[in-house]
C-alpha cells in the first residue's frame, strides 16, 4: 500500500474540523470548564495569603481590583475566629466550584472525544464498504485494520488529549504567571527563567528517546513472531527434534528484548530524574529568592506562601507540555494514513444511471478485459436468453470468474473494452445497487458473517418469516444439518460459534442467495465441496425453484452443466466453443474430451491404467 501519501496541512485541518462537527460544543464546554476550574484553583492560595497576612499577621487586608470597594475587610483583625471560619468556608466553596467544573470538563471532554472518534470510525467503515472491489483486492486487510484502529487512536489522542492539554497548559501558564507577576514581578522572573528550560529539555529529550522506543518495540515484535512461528510450526519443530534449537533462538530474542528495555530504562531514568531535578530546583530557587524578598520587606509572608504555591502548581504541567508537543508530530503521519483511505473514490454511478428491472437477454458484446496488465478476457461475445440456463466450462485462469465480476459490476469495463447489455441497456447505465440486487451470486468460497445462521440466510431481508428461511435452506439441502446443531438456526457462525464445513458453507450461501429472489442467479463453482449425490439433489430442487429465472452455472463437472440450454467453453480468456450438450459432444474439442474422460471411464481402462505404472 502506498504510504508516501501526504495531505496538505489545510486538508488535515479540514478533516479534523469535519469530524469535530456536532461535538464542538462539548470541546468548548470542556475547555471553558477546565479554565474555570483553574481560576477557582488559583483562589485558594489567595485565601491563604489573606488569612496569613491579615487575620494571623498584621498586614492591611487587600483584595485585588474591583473587589476592594465591594467588600470591607477591615474587621478581620477584630474577630479572627469568625474570619477563620469564613476563610475555611471560602476554601470549601471554591473547592466545590472547582469540583463541579472538573466534572463538567471531564464529562464534556469524554462526550466530545467519543463522539469525534465515533464519527471517524463510522465514516471509515461506511466508506470502506463503498470502495470498489479493485481497491479491496489491492490492499491487505491487516494494513487497513491497522489504519482504522491504531491510527484512529493516535488522531483521537492528538485532538482529544494533546490539543486540549496544550490549550489547558497554556492557559494555566498565562493565568498563574500573571497572578505571580502582579504579586511580585522580580520573583516571577526567577520562575520564568525555568519555564523554557524545563519545557525544551523535556521535549528534546523525549524526541531522542522515542527513536529508541521504536527499536525496543520492534524487539518485542520479534519475540512475538518467534513464539508464533514456533507454535504454528510445532509439527516441524517436533519432527526434526529441534526443541533445543528453538529454545536457544527464543532465548536470544527474549534476552535482547529485555536488554534493550533495561538500557532504555537507564535513559528514561535520567530523563525522569532530570525532570525531578529541574522542577525541584525551580521550587528551591523561588523559595530562596522569595525568602530574601520577604525578609527585605518587598513581600508579605502570606504572599510568599501563596507565591510558592502557585510556582509549585506550574512546575509539572510545563514539563508535560514539552513531551506532548514533541509527541504531537506522530499525529500527522496517522492522519495521512487514515486520509489515504478516506480519499479513495467510492464506487459510484454515472449521472444517467437508472433503476430498471432485469428482464431481457444478457449480452456480452466483444468484451476484452485485462487485470493489472494481464489479459484475462479477449474479445468474448455471447448471449444469454432471458429465462434460460446458461453454463460455462473453464479451468483455473480461464477468466470464468471475471465474467461474473463484470456482470455484477465488481469491475467496470473501460472504453474500448466492449460492453455488456441486459435487455439492450448497457449495464453501466444501470444503478449498481439495483443491478446487484437482481443478480443472485454464490461464490466458490462463500463468505459467511459472524452472526447466527438465521441472520446469514436472511441477510438481504432481515424480516423474512421463519418458514421462508427454512424453505430456502431445504432447497439448498442444509435445513437438516442446521436443525441438528444445538442452537439450530440461532447457531453462531465463525470463531465464536461452530465451524461449518466447506460444503455446509456453500449450501448456506445458496440459501442466502435464494432469499434474494433475484431474476438472475449465478453459481460460480458453488457446489465444488459438496459430494456428487447431494449436488444432484440440490440441482433438482433448484430447478423446481428457479422457474423463469435466468441461471448461469460455472463448473468443471459435466454432470452439473449438461442440462443447461447452452454451454460456453472458455479457454484462456477466449470462447473456445458454444452450443448445447448434444451439439458439443458431437464435435471434437475440449468439451468432448472432458466428457469422454468424466463419463466413459470403464473399469477395464482403469485397471489397465493402474497396471501400466
Amino acid at each position, binding site marked *: 500500500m502506498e504510504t508516501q501519501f501526504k495531505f496538505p496541512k489545510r486538508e488535515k485541518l479540514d478533516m479534523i474540523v469535519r469530524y469535530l462537527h456536532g461535538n464542538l460544543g462539548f470541546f468548548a464546554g470542556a475547555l471553558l470548564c477546565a479554565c474555570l476550574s483553574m481560576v477557582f484553583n488559583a483562589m485558594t492560595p489567595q485565601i491563604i495569603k489573606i488569612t496569613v497576612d491579615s487575620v494571623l499577621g498584621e498586614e492591611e487586608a487587600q483584595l485585588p481590583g474591583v473587589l476592594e470597594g465591594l467588600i470591607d475587610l477591615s474587621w478581620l483583625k477584630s474577630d479572627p475566629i469568625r474570619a477563620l471560619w469564613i476563610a475555611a468556608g471560602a476554601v470549601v466553596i471554591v473547592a466545590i466550584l472547582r469540583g463541579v467544573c472538573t466534572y463538567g470538563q471531564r464529562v464534556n471532554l469524554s462526550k466530545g472525544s467519543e463522539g469525534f472518534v465515533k464519527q471517524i470510525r463510522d465514516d471509515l467503515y461506511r466508506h470502506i464498504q463503498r470502495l470498489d472491489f479493485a481497491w479491496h483486492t489491492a490492499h491487505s486487510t491487516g494494513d487497513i485494520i491497522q489504519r482504522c484502529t491504531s491510527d484512529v487512536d493516535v488522531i483521537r489522542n492528538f485532538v482529544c488529549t494533546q490539543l486540549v492539554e496544550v490549550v489547558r497548559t497554556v492557559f494555566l501558564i498565562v493565568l498563574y504567571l500573571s497572578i505571580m507577576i502582579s504579586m511580585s514581578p522580580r520573583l516571577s522572573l526567577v520562575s520564568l527563567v525555568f519555564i523554557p528550560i524545563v519545557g525544551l529539555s523535556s521535549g528534546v529529550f523525549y524526541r531522542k528517546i522515542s527513536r529508541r522506543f521504536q527499536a525496543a518495540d520492534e524487539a518485542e515484535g520479534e519475540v512475538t513472531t518467534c513464539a508464533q512461528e514456533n507454535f504454528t510450526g510445532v509439527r516441524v519443530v517436533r519432527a526434526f527434534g529441534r526443541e533445543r534449537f528453538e529454545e536457544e533462538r527464543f532465548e536470544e530474542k527474549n534476552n535482547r528484548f529485555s536488554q534493550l528495555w533495561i538500557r532504555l530504562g537507564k535513559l528514561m531514568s535520567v530523563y525522569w530524574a532530570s525532570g525531578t531535578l529541574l522542577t525541584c530546583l525551580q521550587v528551591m530557587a523561588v523559595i530562596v529568592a522569595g525568602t530574601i524578598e520577604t*525578609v527585605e520587606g518587598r513581600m508579605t509572608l502570606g504572599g510568599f506562601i501563596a507565591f510558592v504555591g502557585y510556582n509549585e502548581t506550574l512546575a509539572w504541567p510545563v514539563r508535560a507540555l514539552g513531551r506532548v508537543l514533541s509527541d504531537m508530530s506522530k499525529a500527522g503521519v496517522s492522519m495521512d494514513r487514515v486520509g489515504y483511505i478516506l480519499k479513495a473514490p467510492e464506487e459510484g454511478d454515472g449521472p444517467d444511471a437508472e433503476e430498471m428491472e432485469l428482464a431481457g437477454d444478457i449480452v456480452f458484446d466483444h468484451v476484452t478485459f485485462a487485470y493489472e496488465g494481464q489479459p484475462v478476457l479477449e474479445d468474448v461475445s455471447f448471449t444469454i436468453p432471458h429465462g434460460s440456463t446458461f453454463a460455462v466450462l473453464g479451468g483455473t485462469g480461464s477468466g470464468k470468474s471475471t465474467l461474473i465480476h463484470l456482470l455484477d459490476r465488481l469491475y467496470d469495463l473501460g472504453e474500448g473494452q466492449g460492453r455488456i447489455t441486459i435487455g439492450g441497456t448497457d449495464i453501466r447505465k444501470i444503478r449498481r445497487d439495483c443491478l446487484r440486487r437482481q443478480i443472485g451470486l454464490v461464490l466458490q468460497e462463500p463468505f459467511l458473517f459472524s452472526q447466527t445462521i438465521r441472520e446469514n440466510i436472511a441477510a438481504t431481508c432481515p424480516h423474512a418469516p421463519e418458514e421462508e428461511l427454512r424453505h430456502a435452506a431445504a432447497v439448498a439441502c442444509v435445513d437438516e444439518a442446521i436443525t441438528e446443531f444445538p442452537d439450530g438456526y440461532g447457531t453462531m457462525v465463525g470463531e465464536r460459534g461452530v465451524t461449518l464445513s466447506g460444503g455446509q458453507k456453500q449450501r448456506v450461501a445458496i440459501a442466502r442467495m435464494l432469499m434474494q429472489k433475484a431474476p438472475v442467479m449465478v453459481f460460480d463453482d458453488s457446489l465444488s465441496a459438496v459430494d456428487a449425490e447431494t449436488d444432484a439433489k440440490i440441482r433438482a430442487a433448484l430447478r423446481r425453484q428457479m422457474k423463469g429465472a435466468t441461471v448461469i452455472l460455472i463448473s468443471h463437472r459435466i454432470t452439473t452443466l449438461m442440462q443447461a440450454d447452452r454451454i460456453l467453453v472458455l479457454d484462456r480468456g477466449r470462447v473456445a466453443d458454444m452450443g448445447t450438450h448434444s451439439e458439443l459432444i458431437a464435435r471434437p474439442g475440449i468439451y468432448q474430451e472432458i466428457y469422454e474422460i468424466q463419463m466413459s471411464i470403464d473399469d477395464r481402462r482403469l485397471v489397465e491404467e493402474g497396471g501400466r505404472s
Partner: protein
Amino acid sequence: MAAYDEQEYTKSFQLGVWKRLIPLLGNYRRDFALMLIFNLACAAVDVALPLFQRYAIATFIEGDTLRGLLPYALCYLVVILFQALSVVAFSRNAMYIEMSLGRDLRRDLFHHLQTLSLSFYNVTPVGYLIARVMSDTNRIASMISWNLADLLWALFYVLGTFGAMLVLNWRLALVILLIVPAIALLTGYFQGRILHWNRKVRKLNSKITGAFNEGITGAKTAKTLVIEEQSTENFRKITGEMHDSGVRAARLSAVYIPLVLFCSSLAVAIVLLRGGTMVTEQVLEIATLSAFATYAVGVFEPIQSIAANLSEFISLQASIERVTGLLDQRPQVVDTPEVEAKYGDAFHPKKENWEPLEGEIEFRDVTFRYPDGGEDVLSHFNLHIPAGTTVAIVGETGAGKSTLVNLACRFFEPTSGQILIDGRDYRERSQLWLHSNIGYVLQNPHLFSGTVRENIRYGRLEASDEEVEAAARAVSADTVVAKLEKGWDSDVGEGGDRLSTGEKQLISFARAVLADPRIFVLDEATSSIDTQTEQLIQDAIDHLLQDRTSFLIAHRLSTIRKADMILVVRDGQIVERGTHLELLKRKGYYHDLYSRQFAEEHAAKVLG
C-alpha cells in the same frame, strides 16, 4: 485478527495463586530489597521538602534575618540532588525487575510449551498461547515492578507525611486524619465500578476491531448482496455502544476524582480553621501551618493511588492463573525416567547411546482413540511396514488420514497395543531419537523467518554451506534461490510469506533431504501449483522416497500409484488396504474414489 474471547475470572483473592510466583521472585530478592530502600528514600525526601519551606519561614522570615541562608540553600540543594539520584536508582531498579521477571516468565513458558504434546496444540489456538506468553507475562512483570514500587512509595509517603504532621502538631494531625476514612469509603465505592466499565470499554474496542475485520474481508459479499447500508448500520450500533460506555466510564471518574480533590481542600480548610485558631492562641507557628497546608494538599492523592493499585493487583490474579494454568499442563507423551536416563531428554540428548534406525515399523494390535474423541478410530489394528516401504494413505478431506502418521511418529501413543520400530516398542527409546530420524513435509509447508539458507539448515544444524546447497539442488530448490535477489541469503519473510506455496514446498523438501531421515512423511499439497513447479515437485518427491520408509498422505494419482501399499481411510477407519491394482480390482471404495478423482484431475489438465 478477530478477538479471541478470554474467559473471565471473577474469583476473589486467593493466596494460593500468588504463592506460585514466589520461586520466581526469589531470584531477585536483592533487587526487591533495593526497591524497598529506594522508594523509602524517595518518599522520605518528598516528606522532607515542605519542611524546608517551614524552616525558611520560621528562621529567616519570622526571625527577619538572612544569616545562614547560604548553608540552608546548599543543604536544600544536596537534598534535591539526592532526590534526583533516588529517582535514577528507583526507575532503573523497577525497569530491571520488570524486564527480568518478564524474560524469566516467557522463558519458562516457552520451555514448557516445547515439552507439551501435539494433542495439546491440536485443541489450542495459537492466539491463546501468544496471549499468555506475551501479554499476561508482560502484565505480571510490570505490575510486580512498577505498580509495586508505586504502592511502596505511596505507602511510605502517606505514613511519612502523617508521621511528620503528628510530630509537628499531633492535635492538628488527628483532625486531618479524620478525612482518611472518607477517602477509603469513596474509593471502595468507585474503584470496582470504574474497573468494570473500563473492562467493558476494552472489550468493545476489540469488538470494533473484529467488526472492521469482518467488514473488510466480507466487503465483496456485502457488495454482491447489496447490504452495505445494513452492515454499516450494524457497525454504528457497536460504535454507539462504545460511545455510551466510554462516556459512562468517564462520568464515573469525573465524579470520583473531584471528590478526592475535594477531600484535600477540606483538609486545607481544616488546617486554616483549626490551625489558624491555634496560631491566634499562640500554640502553633505560621511556618508549621504552611507546612500542614502543603501536606494536606499532597497526601490524599497517594491514598487514592494505593487503593487503585490494590484493586489492580487483585485483577492481576487472572493473569497469574492463566500463566500457571499453562505451566500446569502435563505432556501426554512422555519418556520414562529409564529412557531419559539412557537417551537424554529433548534439550540434552545423549546421542552416544542412540542406536541407528532402520525404518521397519510394525503396528501390533493397536487400538487408538484421540484424547478428546469419544470413539476408537483404530481397533486391534495390525500392520507391518518393512524398511524402505512407501505407504500411501488416501481418503476424502477430513476422513482422518493423519491418524496413522501421528501414531507412527509418536505424536500420539496407542491407547492399547504396541508400535514397534526395528522390532522394539518405540516407548523404549526417546522421542527425540525417533523425531531426529523423521523428515516431515507439510501440505502447507511451514518456514521460519530468516534466510533460505537458515531454513534449509533447520534439517541439520551442523551442515556446511556446501551440504545445504547440495540438498537444495537435489530437489531443484536452487531454482527458487536463483530467482531471489539475495540468493541463499534472501529473507523468506514471516512464516515464509514472501515465497509462493510451491517455492515453500521445494525449500521444505530441501530441508528434509538435508536431515536425511530414515522415515519420511509427506502431507501432499492439493493447492494448484503451476505445471512447471509441479513437475519439479514430482521429481523431488521421487528423489526423497528412495530407500526410505515413507508415509504419503496423498492426493495426486501419480504419487498414489507409486506406493507399495495403499491404505484407504473413510470416516476415521481404515476400510481397505493393498496395492493400487488389487484395490481397483476389488471395486470398492477406493475404486469409487479413484474414478472420481481421476476424472476431475484429468479434466483440470485438459482445461489447463
